[in-house]
């Protein structure tokens, strides 16, 4: 029993990270209909720039959590600047291009960011200094650390703040209007370009938070770390219904829990025929099943084909 609880906790922590990254994907997708493949790289830049800042601050002797917070506060504007620049240089000129052109651009941007990071931060893996408490609390025989609790809570909090922003503020209304119909939104006095820029900046800020959390939780950061994470988060966003904030959260948590349970129990369930190496197969299989029955994801609206 405590093994099951532990697996669900594992899944929740992993899922919260996926969800945080997935939020960035889904925001951009919601407003532009673009899969921003470079989002994972922004997460990586967040992690590495925070790490650099933390490395400089550690000798100052400030308490650990303060240092991490300072690192985060530096990573957020860095990522926002990167997100803003990407949108301006790479995506904006392609607003009216055929649907796949921005996808290729996104892949190109992803490669460029990765190589720049490799040139800047080197090829080696970086270690996140042990600044936060990793003592495990016991919850009914299962273990969870302070950091993991912080990750789950932060993800929930940011998610709630985002929903509030999108549904309750003027800016949120402008975002929804731009997503619905940019031309009409423009006629209604919405500065669509600014709204889109803002969406990228916000999504990149979230990516910075996610990057710092990943690096802190796994105590590792590397210039190639963004790709897999981005892929998983993208899967999570689609599972929940891409373009939908609640869907990204749900999809992220579900994917985390599915992976965790699959890794833990797939061997027993199949009598040892399949093992934990098939956890991704299992996750994709669930995704395909969900999409067969709900073609626009768990919480996605039924939309007509985009022109």
């Amino acid at each position, binding site marked *: 029993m405590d093994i099951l609880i532990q697996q669900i906790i594992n899944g929740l922590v992993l899922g919260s990270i996926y969800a945080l990254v997935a939020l960035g994907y889904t925001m951009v997708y919601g407003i532009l209909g673009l899969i921003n493949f470079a989002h994972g790289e922004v997460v990586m830049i967040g992690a590495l720039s925070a790490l650099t800042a933390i490395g400089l601050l550690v000798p100052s002797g400030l308490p650990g959590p303060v240092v991490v917070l300072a690192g985060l506060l530096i990573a957020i504007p860095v990522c926002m600047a990167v997100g803003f620049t990407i949108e301006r240089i790479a995506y904006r000129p392609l607003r009216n291009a055929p649907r*796949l052109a921005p996808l*290729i651009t996104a892949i190109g941007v992803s490669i460029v960011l990765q190589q720049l990071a490799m040139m800047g931060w080197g090829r080696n893996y970086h270690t996140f200094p042990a600044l936060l408490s990793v003592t495990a609390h016991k919850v009914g025989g299962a273990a969870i650390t302070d950091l993991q609790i912080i990750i789950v809570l932060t993800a929930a909090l940011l998610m709630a703040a985002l929903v509030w922003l999108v549904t309750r503020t003027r800016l949120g209304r402008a975002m929804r209007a731009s997503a619905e119909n940019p031309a009409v939104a423009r006629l209604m006095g919405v500065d669509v370009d600014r709204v889109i820029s803002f969406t990228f900046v916000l999504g990149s800020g979230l990516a910075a938070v996610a990057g710092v959390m990943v690096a802190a939780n796994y105590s590792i950061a590397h210039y190639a770390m963004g790709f897999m994470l981005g892929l998983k988060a993208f899967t999570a966003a689609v599972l929940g219904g891409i373009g939908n904030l609640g869907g990204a959260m749900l999809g992220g948590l579900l994917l985390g829990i599915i992976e965790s349970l699959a890794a833990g129990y797939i061997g027993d369930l199949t009598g040892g025929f399949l093992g934990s190496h098939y956890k991704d197969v299992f996750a994709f299989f669930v995704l395909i099943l969900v999409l067969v029955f709900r073609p626009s994801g768990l919480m996605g609206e039924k939309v007509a084909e985009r022109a």
Partner: protein
Amino acid sequence: MSADPKLKARLGIALIGVALAVLPFAVGATFGNSWVRIVDFALLYVMLALGLNIVVGFAGLLDLGYIAFYAVGAYLYALLSSPHLATAFPALFAVAPGWPVWAVLPLGALVAGLFGVMLGAPTLKLRGDYLAIVTLGFGEIIRIFLNNLNAPANITNGPQGINNIAAAQIGGHALNRPLELFGVMVPGVHLQYYFFLALTLLVVFVCVRLQDSRLGRAWVAIREDEVAARACGINTRNVKLLAFGLGATFGGVAGGLFAGFQGFVSPESFGLLESVMVLCMVVLGGMGHIPGVILGAVLLALLPEALRWGAVPVQQSLFGKVLIDPESLRLLLFGIALVVVMRWRPAGLWPSALRKRELAAHGEAA
């Protein structure tokens, strides 16, 4: 201008034919055989890109797992032309299977085609990016199975890959060995080139015929407006499945050629990045336009290699020293090239005339 256009066209084709025929010797003599090898790979990518073009370019279905079919073809060839099965299942295979290439390649095409239909069936209702993620998942599922099917029964030899795959034999001559023809030694890579070229031309021919067929027009109809296509009496389900199936067959053939050429296959050759690479070729060249797709495939196959050779000497001549190490620069410039080409030619380097017109009209409307 005054010349007969027909004659001009024939002359052009003849010139291209001669150029293609002497290409390996010209390239081999000037740049070395490694470039002939790179050209061989470029031909494989042309086949892959043309296959994916049927799915993405003609039928408008975004496929991010195309490399799975390449993997299926490659592993089928590997199993049927290497000692692996005989070692793994001595009870079933007394001698190592050594199927002739003319039997393996069509079989690979068929099996890959079946996999294509298998992928297509559950995804018929999905559109756009949902389709993209499911195909991506499918590609990963295939790769994970290839990587792990060494236990309980050792079918694929898992991450270790399958080694000692026999090269394709034509007329009793293995294509990886040099052949003496009229007193000239023709190296193995050259022979592979001619073999690949023949099959590539076949693929091009099939593609051109498909494009102008009823089926080709049905694909375009679906791409432009699926609902309207159905209203016009097109059986969208069958037509979509055919796109997946036919597209996959080309991947299967290319995979078989790859296995015979390399002599070794392992799952690392069939990752997601390869799928993305082939998609880039199709989109960058000009989706749906066969010459454009060929151009895209050739360019993207050659560009990283050209950068590998050129990065150091160019920097040395420009700055007098190597500022950025060539490996980083190679991928960096590759990424920049993708962004820049899409920025200035969003419909691809060489789009079809129709698409160019559409895009211009769309731009005015917006």
